[in-house]
C-alpha cells in the first residue's frame, strides 16, 4: 500500500473462494516471499514476536478463567487474533496513536501498558486506568464503530498541528471488526479520512463473526475492496501471520505519516473463542470450522518457523512458557487484591468540577452511608 498498491484495491468482483492475501509465513512455518512486502528482523526480534504471542494468549486465557470464576464481569477474548494484534501493534512507532475496540488486549500489551489495566475495567474497580496520551493507546470502545470517527478526527488534528510528513511524522490506527464495517459511523469515517487525506490506517480484524452473524451478513465483496470506492488503497493480509501483519501495517502507517493519506487493512483471521464470556458459539457455528482454523493457528506457525530456522530450541520454548505462566499467575494475584472503589466515587467524573445537583446527591448519599456506621452488620 505504501508502494503504490492502489491498482489492487479494486480488483476481483465476486468474493474468491480462497482468500488472496499478503502472507509471509505459511501455516506450516515456511517463510514465503511477497513482491511488495517483507520483514527484516533479527533472530532476537523473531523470538521476541513469538514471546509476545505466547504471553498475550496466556494472559487472555487467564482473564477468561477469572471471569468464569466470577472475578470479572465479562471478558472479550482475543484467542485466534494474536498475530493480527501483535503484528500491527509492534508495527506502530512510538509516536503513533491507536484507537482500539474492546478486544485489543494484544495491541495494549505491545503499547507497554500493564495488562492488569483492562482487567480492572472489567472487574469494575476502575475505568481502565491507563493514560491514552502517555501510552498512545486510547480507551476501549464498546459502542460499535464510534472509535473510527474519533481516530479520524484525531488524525486530522495531528495534520493540522504539522505532525505529519517525513519519516518521524505521526500516524493513527483505528481498530474495528467485520461487523462494524456495516455501521454508518465507520463508512463516514472512511469518507472523512479520504476527503481530508487523514494519516490513518483502518485496521479491520475480520474474525468472520459479529457475535453470531457470519461475514456474509455484512458484505458481498471482500471487505478490503470497499476502500477503492472511498478512494484509498485497501488490502487483505493473512491475519494469522504475524510477519505479514507487521509488514503491511508498518508500510501503511509509514505512508500515512509521510502524508500519503488513509488506507484499509483487512486482517483475515478467526475468533477461536466465544464473542465474549456471555456467548455460546456452539449455537451458531460448527466444530469442523474451528478445526480448519486451528490448523492455521498464529502461534504454531511461528514456533515451526523458529524451529526450522534453528532460531530457537526447546529450552527457549520452555522458558517462554514459564514466563507466560509467571505473568499470568502474577496477574491473577494482583486482580484478586484490587480494592473495591468507595461507593461515593459513583458521583465522580460526571462533570470535572461537580455540579450543584450532583453535590447535593453526593451529600445525601454520604449521610445515608454514615447512618450505617457503628451498627453491627
Amino acid at each position, binding site marked *: 500500500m505504501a508502494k503504490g498498491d492502489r491498482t489492487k484495491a479494486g480488483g476481483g468482483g465476486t468474493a474468491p473462494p480462497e482468500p488472496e492475501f499478503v502472507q509471509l509465513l505459511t501455516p506450516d512455518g515456511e517463510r514465503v516471499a511477497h513482491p511488495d512486502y517483507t520483514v527484516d528482523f533479527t533472530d532476537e526480534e523473531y523470538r521476541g514476536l513469538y514471546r509476545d504471542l505466547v504471553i498475550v494468549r496466556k494472559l487472555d486465557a487467564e482473564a477468561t478463567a477469572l471471569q468464569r470464576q466470577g472475578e470479572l*464481569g*465479562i471478558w472479550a477474548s482475543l484467542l485466534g487474533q494474536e498475530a493480527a494484534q501483535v503484528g500491527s501493534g509492534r508495527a506502530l512507532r512510538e509516536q503513533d496513536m491507536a484507537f482500539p475496540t474492546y478486544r485489543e488486549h494484544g495491541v495494549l500489551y505491545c503499547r507497554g501498558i500493564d495488562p492488569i489495566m483492562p482487567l480492572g*475495567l472489567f472487574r*469494575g*474497580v476502575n475505568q481502565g486506568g491507563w493514560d491514552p496520551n502517555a501510552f498512545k493507546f486510547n480507551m476501549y470502545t*464498546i*459502542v*460499535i464503530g464510534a472509535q473510527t470517527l474519533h481516530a479520524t478526527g484525531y488524525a486530522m488534528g495531528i495534520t493540522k498541528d504539522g505532525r505529519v510528513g517525513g519519516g518521524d511524522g505521526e500516524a493513527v490506527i483505528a481498530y474495528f471488526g467485520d*461487523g*462494524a464495517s*456495516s*455501521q*454508518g*459511523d465507520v463508512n463516514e469515517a472512511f469518507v472523512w479520512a479520504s476527503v481530508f487525506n487523514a494519516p490513518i490506517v483502518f485496521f479491520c480484524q475480520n474474525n468472520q463473526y*459479529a*457475535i*453470531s*452473524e457470519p461475514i456474509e*451478513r*455484512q458484505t458481498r465483496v471482500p471487505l478490503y475492496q470497499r476502500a477503492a470506492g472511498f478512494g484509498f488503497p485497501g488490502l487483505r493480509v493473512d491475519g494469522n501471520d504475524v510477519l505479514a501483519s507487521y509488514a503491511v501495517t508498518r508500510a501503511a502507517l509509514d505512508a500515512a505519516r509521510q502524508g500519503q493519506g488513509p488506507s484499509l487493512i483487512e486482517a483475515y483471521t478467526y475468533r477461536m473463542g466465544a464473542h465474549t464470556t456471555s456467548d455460546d458459539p456452539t*449455537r*451458531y457455528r460448527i466444530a469442523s470450522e474451528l478445526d480448519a482454523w486451528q490448523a492455521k493457528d498464529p502461534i504454531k506457525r511461528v514456533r515451526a518457523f523458529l524451529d526450522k530456522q534453528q532460531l530457537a530450541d526447546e529450552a527457549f520454548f520452555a522458558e517462554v512458557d514459564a514466563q507466560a505462566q509467571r505473568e499470568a499467575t502474577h496477574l491473577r494475584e494482583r486482580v484478586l487484591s484490587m480494592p*473495591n*472503589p468507595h*461507593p461515593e*466515587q*459513583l*458521583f465522580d467524573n*460526571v462533570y470535572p468540577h461537580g455540579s450543584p*445537583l*450532583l453535590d447535593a*446527591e453526593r451529600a445525601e*448519599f454520604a449521610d445515608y452511608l454514615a447512618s450505617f456506621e457503628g451498627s453491627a452488620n
Partner: protein
Amino acid sequence: MADTTYREAIREAIREAMRRDERVFLMGEDVGPYGGAFGVSLGLLEEFGPERIRDTPLSESAFVGAGIGAALGGMRPIVEVMTVNFSLLALDQIINNAATLLHMSGGQFAVPLVIRMTTGAGRQLAAQHSHSLEGWYAHIPGLRILAPATVADARGMLWPALRCPDPVLIFEYGGLYNASGELDGGAAVDIDTAAVRRPGSDVTIIGYGGTLSTSLTAADRLADDGIDAEVVDLRTLRPLDDATLLDSVRRTHRAVIVDEGWRSGSLSAEISARITEQAFYDLDAPVARVCSAEVPIPYARHMEQAALPQPAGVVAAVRAALGRSDG
C-alpha cells in the same frame, strides 16, 4: 396453570403474530440462529425461516429505517434493536422519520412499525449499556411507548401494537427476562391504560417496567408497618393514562414516582407536573420521586445498585410523604 417467563411470553407473542399475519416479520442483529441477544427469538428461525426471521447487517439506523420502508410498503415489521443504548444510532429514523411521517404526508402514510428493545440497568453492563431512555422517547409526539412489566403484558402487548397504526416502541426490561408469572390464555391486552397492581389507601406508588417490582416490594414492606400503599403500573408511557393516575392520587392524597430514568427532565417530572396541575388540592404532601442518581450508571455492582432506585428508597420516600420520621 404453568408459569411462563417474560422471555417466553414475548417469544410466544411474536410466534402468534407471525402465524396470524403473513405480513409480520422480525429483523435485527443476531435474531436468527442465535435467537437474539436475550434469547427471545430462540427457535423462531426454525419455524418461520430466514425470510421472516432476518439477521441483518450490524447497523441500527439501517434496520430501523428499512423497517419504516417495509411498513410503508404494507408489511408489519417487528424490528429488534438489541438494547435501547444502540437505538441512539437510529434516533433520526425513529424520531425524525417514523414519528413524523403521518404528519408530513398530510395523513396519507401511517407507519405501523413495532420496535422492540431491551432497557434498563442492574446487570453490570456499564454506563454505555445501561440506559433507561424510554422516558425520553415518551417525549415525542407520534410515537406510542409501551413498557411491559408483567408476563401478561409481555405476552399481550405485541398484537395490539402491530394492529396500531402508530410506530410503537416496546421497552422490555432486561432484568425481567427470567421473571416468571402466570399467563391465562395469553389474550391481547389494551395498550392505552395504566393498571392498579395493588390497591391501597395511604399513598400511590407509581412505577413501570423494572420499577414495578421495586414498588411492589416496597409496598409489602410498608404493609408490615401498617401503611397501605396502592401501586400503579403505567404500562403505556405515551400517551399517559392520566385518568387512572389521578383517580388513585385523589383517593390516597400522596404520590411517589419510581423511575429508573434520571430525575432531571424526565418522565417522572412529567407525571409529577400532571399530578400537581390536576390534583394539587387533593394532595396532602408534595409529590416525591425515587430515580437513578444523576450519573452515568457505574459498572461495579455495589455502586450500580447504589445508583438505582431500590425498595428502601421508596419506603423512605413514602414514610416522608406520610410524615413518619424514621426513628
